[in-house]
């Protein structure tokens, strides 16, 4: 048979398969809907976690090289500022800077804020710079608008008094993924709110001359101060590489439920054909169709269902994650948080993700449709029709 003839034969088989699918319209539409949803869920998780990981690896590349925390009975506690002198003497350390930061629960809005001391506010006690999430959450009660420049936020200090700080600036919306709950304050105000004595810091951040020496310097710090632990920049980057790993946490639950739904779907197909389908195969064999023709027809049926679902599922997942800001995942991500960052992820997708989805869904389904047909197509047409 010439190539054109072979192609024409495939087209006729495809025409027949599509007509055959059309005869069981309701069942096949339901199948496509369920199948599309499974692929949509898998693709959404893959796109979301990959883009978030990529975003984290790009923006946290300039995170502190080494962060030194002091531990007491397994918990982090304030580190004395005199540790700075000994750390500065370690060969290869360029600078050591104290960081003062902590969490503040705002009883008015019910949100948790991250308060951090910033050098730019050194001589500007009473002023704060806030993230977009803070401006949204603090505007509760009678006020319906977001907080703006020159508005005030009252803070209840640890000694029971109230300290009112004036908003002198807001972070841009673009930085919401890192600054949504952040409030920058002066050192004086921070110490007033948390009643922290002088000569103490939350942790210390180190800059080193040669980034290849990070691990060695980290080990030297622990040797010098056994009550501390050092977190390297690579630890921070690896945290975000693993934290949204699709093989961990609740993500594996979502994926496994979608995958099991798919297994049930494929199992239903693989365990046998309906009586109507079997009769159809019997009639086709009786009128002279070869077994290979029947298998090809079933292959085209499987391919038509799975390819349509595959394209639909992937495109809907892309729209869901990158245009609708992962709307369906929001309740899972929000949890009990009152303050939630509003961000739009940059789409980082690649051929590997598409290939993984293709081989996990389209191939098994197509194979699952051929196997039972092969079993029916190899038995006598007369007995198949009598079944």
């Amino acid at each position, binding site marked *: 048979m010439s190539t054109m003839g072979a192609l024409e034969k495939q087209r006729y088989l*495809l*025409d027949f398969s599509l*007509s055959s699918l059309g005869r069981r319209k309701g069942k096949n539409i339901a199948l496509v809907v369920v199948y599309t949803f499974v692929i949509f869920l898998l693709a959404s998780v893959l796109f979301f976690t990959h883009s*978030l990981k990529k*975003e984290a690896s*790009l*923006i*946290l590349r*300039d*995170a502190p090289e080494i*962060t030194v925390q002091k*531990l007491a009975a*397994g*918990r*982090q506690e304030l580190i004395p500022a005199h540790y700075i002198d000994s750390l500065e003497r370690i060969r290869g350390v360029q600078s050591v800077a104290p960081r003062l930061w902590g969490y503040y629960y705002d009883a008015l809005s019910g949100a*948790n804020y991250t308060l*951090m001391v910033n050098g730019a506010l050194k001589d500007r006690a009473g002023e704060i710079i806030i993230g977009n*999430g803070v401006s949204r959450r603090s505007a509760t009660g009678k006020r319906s608008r977001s907080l703006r420049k020159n508005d005030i936020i009252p803070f209840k200090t640890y000694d029971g008094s109230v300290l009112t700080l004036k908003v002198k600036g807001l972070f841009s919306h*673009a*930085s*919401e*993924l*890192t600054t*949504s*709950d952040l409030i*920058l304050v002066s050192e004086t105000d921070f110490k007033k709110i948390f009643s922290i004595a002088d000569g103490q810091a939350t942790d210390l951040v180190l800059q080193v001359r040669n980034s290849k020496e990070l*691990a060695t310097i980290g*080990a030297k710090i*622990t040797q010098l101060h056994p009550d501390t*632990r*050092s*977190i*390297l920049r690579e*630890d921070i980057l690896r*945290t*975000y590489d*693993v*934290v*949204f790993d699709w093989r*961990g*946490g*609740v993500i594996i639950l979502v994926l496994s439920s979608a995958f099991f739904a798919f297994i049930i779907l494929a199992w239903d197909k693989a365990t046998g054909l309906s009586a109507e389908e079997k009769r159809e195969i019997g009639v086709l064999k009786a009128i002279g169709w070869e077994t290979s023709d029947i298998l090809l027809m079933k292959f085209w049926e499987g391919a038509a269902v799975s390819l*349509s679902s595959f*394209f*639909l599922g992937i*495109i809907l997942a*892309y729209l869901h994650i*990158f245009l609708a800001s992962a709307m369906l995942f929001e309740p*899972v*991500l929000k*949890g009990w*948080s009152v*303050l*939630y*960052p509003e961000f739009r992820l*940059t*789409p*980082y*997708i690649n051929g590997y993700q*598409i290939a993984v989805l293709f081989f996990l869904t389209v191939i098994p389904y197509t194979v699952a449709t051929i196997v039972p047909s092969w079993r029916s197509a190899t038995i006598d047409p007369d007995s198949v029709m009598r079944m």
Partner: protein
Amino acid sequence: MFARKSDGFFTALLAGGVLLGLMFADAAISQRLDLDSVRRRREVVRVLTLTDLCLFTEARYTRHPSMADLHAPFQEHPMSLEHFPSGAVMAVPPHLNRRESAPRTQR
């Protein structure tokens, strides 16, 4: 509309392929357009010495997972089990699980 059913199928397949291609084109364009804002976010991280993304604000160990210790999720009591929903979404930072001979990071 189509003379043969297979014509409709191939057209739909082609449309799917084109949409997939457009998806990649949109991703490439968005990445290019977002370069500047990524640079700005990176600058914010560098200047403010930030260590984590602000994804979950409900618990301190999910707000700053890279800074948390293993005991933080258990709050103030040994029987106070980790209960924040975000704790179920995230995996444990790998440096907390590292078993090493050098005492670089205490668990």
